[in-house]
């Protein structure tokens, strides 16, 4: 499916379709509450079949977080970016590790570095930092006088 066809298809699928323009791939904005359902549709619906989640990351926008999911279908070779806006004080989002196994590690990484809580995650622990580490290093307001060098 090309970019336009994909957009039409997603408009029918999403509860409140919003798109970001100007990006290389179709970029859809999804509500955190509806994300898990949308993810299942993206993975299993005939014609979409996004089976390969190649990048999961969070962005700290100081006022809110954005979770970014890059999805490709190895069958149809189309790509979509899904962005989910999260509250900065209570960053919670349902896990998708049961749909794409790779998400289990990627979500642990996002939890470790940003403090995003993935509800329903089978094993949400710190990944790179030690268990007793305080704070979320990749947040923009993170301060660590001992380990961090100001450049």
């Amino acid at each position: 499916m090309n970019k336009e066809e994909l957009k039409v298809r997603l408009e029918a699928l999403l509860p409140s379709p919003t798109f970001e323009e100007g990006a290389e791939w179709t970029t859809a904005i999804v509500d955190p509450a509806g994300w898990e359902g949308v993810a299942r549709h993206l993975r299993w619906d005939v014609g979409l079949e996004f089976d390969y989640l190649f990048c999961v990351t969070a962005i700290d926008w100081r006022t809110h977080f954005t979770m970014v999911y890059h999805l490709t279908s190895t069958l149809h070779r189309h790509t979509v970016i899904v962005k989910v806006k999260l509250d900065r004080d209570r960053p919670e989002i349902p896990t998708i590790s049961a749909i794409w196994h790779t998400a289990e590690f990627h979500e642990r990484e996002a939890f470790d570095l940003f403090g995003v809580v993935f509800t329903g995650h089978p094993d949400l622990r710190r990944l790179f930092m030690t268990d007793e580490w305080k704070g979320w290093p990749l947040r923009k307001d993170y301060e660590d006088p001992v380990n961090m060098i100001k450049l």
Partner: protein
Amino acid sequence: MIQEVGTTEQGELVINLGPQHPSTHGVLHLVITLSGETIKKVEPHLGYIHRSIEKMCESLSYRQFIYVTSRMDYLSSHINNHGCALCVEKGMQIEVPPRAKVIRVLMDELTRLASHQLWWGAMAMDVGALTPFFHAFREREAINDIMEETCGARLTMNYMVPGGVMADLHPDFPKKVKEFIRFFRTKIDEYDDLVTGNVIFKSRMEGVGYLSPESAVSYGCTGPTARGSGVSCDIRKLYPYEVYGQLQFEEVTATGGDCFARYMVRMQEMRQSLSIIEQLIDNIPEGEFQAKTKAVLKLPKGEFYSRVETARGEFGVYIISEGGTTPYRIKFRSPGFSNLSALDHMARGYKIGDLVAIMGTLDLVIPDIDR
């Protein structure tokens, strides 16, 4: 805290492998649950070489951050640099001169060869054959010498910059590369004679660490790991960058899904890389090796994603720019991280001795996983 050593209630033994263990090729720490000798669970503990490169990059300029990426997957440092340079060029809309494009592809393929050589030696060593390691390092030395002449470094090259490459090729480069190809063509057959057909080696590899194509995709595996399961995922073929679209080469896949299939994919990939280098070495266009760029690079507001095929799989660079001289956020999608996530799935049910073989065919580079 999880239980790190001892016996569980079900009589299963919990043991630690690493972080200081030769077969983990770095500082990977695995907590393994065993029932007898059978693996029940493998849990990787990461972070022993976590340097928070993504955070560092937020305070480095678009020229500087590329140098840090050599320190992630140090065996594919050229290709990491390449991915970053491509992403900045995409944002700035810089057109790279033809000469630089060809030089980049040549360097990428030499890097891939060197990386696969080291993997081959280390892989054989993991399963108990020491001789191949010395053979592999002898041949890899020749590539390192070629790199040193042109790039000035042997491991962390930092040769690719936004707009092209940092310096022109050394005048001896084509001659030396041709010599190397002649030399290595005979050696790679020797590799096959020495290891590939070996009965003991085959019995350690065949039918071990099975990964189905569906699982490979679901775990986000890429590179030879996924191609050994028959998943077509070569970025050079699917989303050609630089001059890959004009070259004649095969995407090597195997259908076995076991350690031996992954082994064979890498062996064939070495031959493909040799063929790519042969196609290009006499056809390096004349002209500039670097496009004219401003001293201070500023990416427009927006987000840019570029992907390249390293020796381990798909390497992605995701830059979010606010229009300044430094990136607002950078995410590196490293192939090793996703490949490692499949280790638990692949190792369950096999014997503890097989784990080392499975890890060997994943070709893990720990700094690439930890970043």
